């Protein structure tokens, strides 16, 4: 069953440059997909279209049955509540504790305190940060901050987890730990994972589906693939 359907999608910028060109892509429910490619090949633009931070200039992007491009600006938040997003720069609120950061999307959606407590504790347990719930982000290491970001992304139990270069700011050892956490979520929660990365080691060690982009076009799409972006001109 397809969870993401991208059909003949284009993303053109005002200066005429195309970030994405006639791209079609299907991702099954529960799949783990790496999106790789050289810098400025359109990887981030592609995932930004999934959570409607970018709108396709042409074509359709369907996520979990929702035609993302047709969602009005005022209703985008409803789509994002169904997704989990992990960023390279963590995007944590520095003046809130770990618990408050993870609880934030639920609290602002009006969820009851008891449900929040249950869900936040479970999410923190899944990422192995149960003991740090009272800490502030500044007191945490890069890897721990990224785990908080993952916990916040999965607290709503989303069907899709979008990870935009989640290991970009981390050392190789911590990067592996983070990918392990994401892989665990994919397996235990059956969450579809789309992860943008240019970390060759991680891609090669995971043996998952690898989609390689170049100049906004898919140049390679292999199940149990490896990192081939280096080999493409």
């Amino acid at each position, binding site marked *: 069953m397809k969870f993401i359907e991208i059909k003949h999608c284009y993303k053109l910028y005002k200066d005429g440059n195309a970030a994405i060109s006639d791209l079609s892509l299907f991702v099954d429910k529960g799949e783990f997909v790496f999106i790789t490619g050289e810098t400025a090949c359109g990887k981030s633009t592609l995932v930004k279209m999934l*959570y409607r*931070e970018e709108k396709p200039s042409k074509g359709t992007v369907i996520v979990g049955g929702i035609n993302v491009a047709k969602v009005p*600006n*005022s209703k*985008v*938040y*409803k*789509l*994002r*509540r*169904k*997704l989990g*997003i992990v*960023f390279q720069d963590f*995007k*944590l*609120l520095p*003046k809130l504790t770990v618990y408050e950061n993870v609880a*934030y*999307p639920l*609290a*602002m*959606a*009006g969820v*009851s305190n008891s449900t929040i407590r249950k869900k936040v504790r479970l999410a923190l347990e899944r990422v192995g940060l149960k003991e740090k719930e009272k800490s502030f982000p500044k007191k945490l290491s890069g890897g721990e901050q990224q785990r908080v970001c993952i916990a*916040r992304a999965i607290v*709503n139990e989303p069907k899709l987890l979008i990870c935009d270069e989640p290991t970009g700011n981390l050392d190789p050892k911590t990067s592996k730990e983070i990918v392990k956490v994401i892989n665990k979520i994919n397996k235990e929660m059956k969450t579809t994972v789309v992860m943008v990365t240019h970390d060759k080691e991680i891609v090669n060690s995971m043996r998952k589906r690898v989609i390689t982009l170049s100049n906004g076009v898919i140049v390679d799409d292999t199940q149990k693939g490896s990192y081939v972006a280096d080999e493409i001109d």
Partner: protein
Amino acid sequence: MKLIRIFFRNLANAFKSIFRNISLSSASLLCTTITLFIVAVGVIVTENINDFTRNLTKSLSIVAFVDSGSSNEEIERIKNEISSIENVKTDEIIYKDRKTVKEETLEKAEKGSTIYTIVSTWEDDNNPLQPEFIIYVKDSKKLEKTADDISNIDKVKSVKYAKEVNKQMTPVIDIIQKISIIIIIGLIVVTVFLIGNTIKLTIYARSEEIEIMRLVGISNTVIRLPFVIEGTILGFLGSIIPIAVTIWGYTICYDKLGGILFSPIIKMIEPMPFTLYTSLILLAIGGVVGMAGSYMAVRRYLKV
């Protein structure tokens, strides 16, 4: 239930945020306090000037002398005709019969003077003095026209009013009133601009926070809510010192100066309820500008 929960959580967040962003909150608070203080001084000064000019125009009256042989019915008719003139303050028409005019003349005259001696020999109801109407007008600019209309009433022998004073004073009062309105509007515009810009800067410093809120699926309304509540709270808090200065400062000044400024003809407005109204204006400006300023400033960072 959900909405109530969201509102109270944001209310709590707004209070927490004031303390968590204490330097930004202080900057915003200080700016609001200073600008509202200037507005308070502006309102007090201009309102006192306005009150002085209003009192001057109020004191402009027309005295209409009535034929001394007029019967009570005729007096009543004259009063009705005066009342029917549009510019006349109908509830402030004063009629003085010959007896009252005689008594007042005696009061004003020095005892033992020729006038006093002569007038005191006259009878109360049968004396050569003319009964009179004292008439106040609504608009001092139309004083001359009103005086003409009154003089045309049958049995009104003559009218008297400060024609020259009125001619010279009316344009001056007009200019003073216009200038004071311009000053107040100008001060409010400057306040809105200054407080608004401070809020813009404080929200710019928190634009990343807004971006995170958007990305984790929070609606635009809920994103705005803590900022708008915070802006309103800071606006209200910023008006506290100017309000205190208005109430106590003005009252102390009033008491020390005995309610008179420079000359006995320039009377200050009594502190109550004037300072209360001024305080309400300051509170409203602080709250509304804080609320609207935050709403507009956050809008910039939302994709709406």
